[in-house]
């Protein structure tokens, strides 16, 4: 049954290669730009989700407990996406791209954190005001995404 050993070794090597591929940081300018684009995409998704929830609350369509859960998730996900991107070493000429993404990313996490805290404290009336910066943020993220992909 020698061949089963070879099969096992091959499988382990395949799994290791896959994990390496999935975890490897971007090394080329192209792949770094791809990660930047998907990070801005993820950030914009969180911003738009939060906006929908604020709108649903204003119209009395959603319940407050559910909305506070949603704000918590949006903030945590945006934070995670941003810190993952910030952890990559920018290759070559991408320093500027890195700072653009992280600057807008910080603004996004701050805005989402404000929503989450207001919901946790029960300051529901403040939400529409706190949600004001979300729309321009979404537009900036979309512009950045387009510029990055080009």
């Amino acid at each position: 049954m020698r061949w089963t050993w070879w099969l096992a070794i091959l499988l382990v090597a395949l799994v290791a290669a896959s994990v390496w591929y999935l975890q490897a940081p971007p090394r080329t300018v192209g792949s770094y730009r791809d990660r930047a684009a998907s990070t801005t995409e993820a950030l914009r998704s969180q911003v738009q989700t939060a906006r929908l929830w604020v709108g649903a609350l204003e119209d009395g369509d959603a319940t407050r407990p559910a909305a506070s859960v949603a704000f918590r998730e949006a903030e945590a996900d945006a934070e995670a996406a941003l810190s993952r991107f910030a952890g990559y070493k920018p290759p070559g000429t991408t320093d500027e791209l890195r700072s653009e993404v992280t600057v807008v990313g910080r603004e996004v996490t701050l805005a989402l954190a404000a929503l989450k805290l207001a919901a946790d404290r029960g300051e529901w009336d403040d939400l529409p005001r706190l949600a004001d910066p979300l729309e321009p943020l979404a537009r900036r993220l979309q512009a950045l995404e387009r510029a990055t992909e080009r």
Partner: protein
Amino acid sequence: MKPSTLFAFTLGTLSAIGGFIDIGDLVADAQVGARFGLRLAWVTVVSVIGIMCFAEMSGRIALKTQRPAFGLARSRIGPRYALAGLVGAFLVTALLVMAELSGVALALELASGFHYLLWVPVAAAFVVVVVWTLPFKLMHRIYGVLGLAMLVYVVAIWKLDPDWSTMWRSTATPAPVPGETWGAYLFFVVVLIGAQMTPYEMFFFSSGAVESRWRPKDLAEMRINVIVGFPLGGLLAIAIQAAAFLVFFDLGVQVDHISQTALPVALALGQVGFLLAIVGIFAATFGATLETLFATGYEIAQYFGWSYGKVQPPARAARFTTATLALLLISAALALTTLDPITVTIVAVVFSAALLPFLFVPVLLTANDRELMGELVNGRLANAVGSLTILFSVAVALAAFPLLVLTRAGVS
């Protein structure tokens, strides 16, 4: 139709809804709708046809032999092959138990606002109490009726007032939307197949048929359950895709949470609709927790020939009861490690898709055994559809892992 037939009909239909829509669907359908609109709706149609075919076959095997399909596998295809199938199916369904249990906790989180990890032990305890105290049929009936709340998704589509021609154009375009790659598109084909053609539905359906003591005369009843139940589940799946399409697609929202799956209903139907959606999500994941849990217990018990099931006192099936309880505890512990239930779900359904051919082939072979099946042997239709489904599932299985890695689980 006799009143008792009608009753059994609704019962089976309801449990089919609970069986088809589970955490995998709630996540995958909303993700797919938000990213690809209805361009993957055809996959749901294929899945429904495939799972109907194999559920009917395994139901027929159970009627004729009074043995579930998996119980026959070992004596027909040998202990080695059946053991490999058992290990694969066990790993996938055990992962799914964890994901479904987390889904119950996530529904309770949405209703209450308290973090879902606090709800995981509560959900597990609730599962134990329900399984221990309620009879098999009543258990199905309750989560089946509650699962009907999922129909709010169908109502929500009308209230969102879609442009039907856009919806139709999306449905009729089986290709990725601009800006998405074919890799991502095909990865989500695999995910939807894995989420909707789940082998545990087949195990559960046939073991349930054995436990309800169905006989060959119940053939019509069994078929009605299949013909009504699974398409209804498929309709709900497409409704979730459509709702996510209408609300999220233009905004570029990516779905990563159950809260987002429920949001379109809130926007369409207000708080009442939203609460119904939460009830539906709770019932679907709760039902699926029970089904995956039992299916895993059945798989093990049938391989080793232990007594199993819920129709007898638990002490008369001590090994089965212990294994099931232990699995529930392990799943709850796994859920408490803060492993993201959505990621676990996606990984589990990809593995599940890769396993499909191995689990379908023995069923098709058994259903074709004239000596065993007698007058209930497979006809041409069942064989044609079954073979096509297996061919399709082989392609899906071969592509599953390369796509998972190359697309980084659909990210790029």
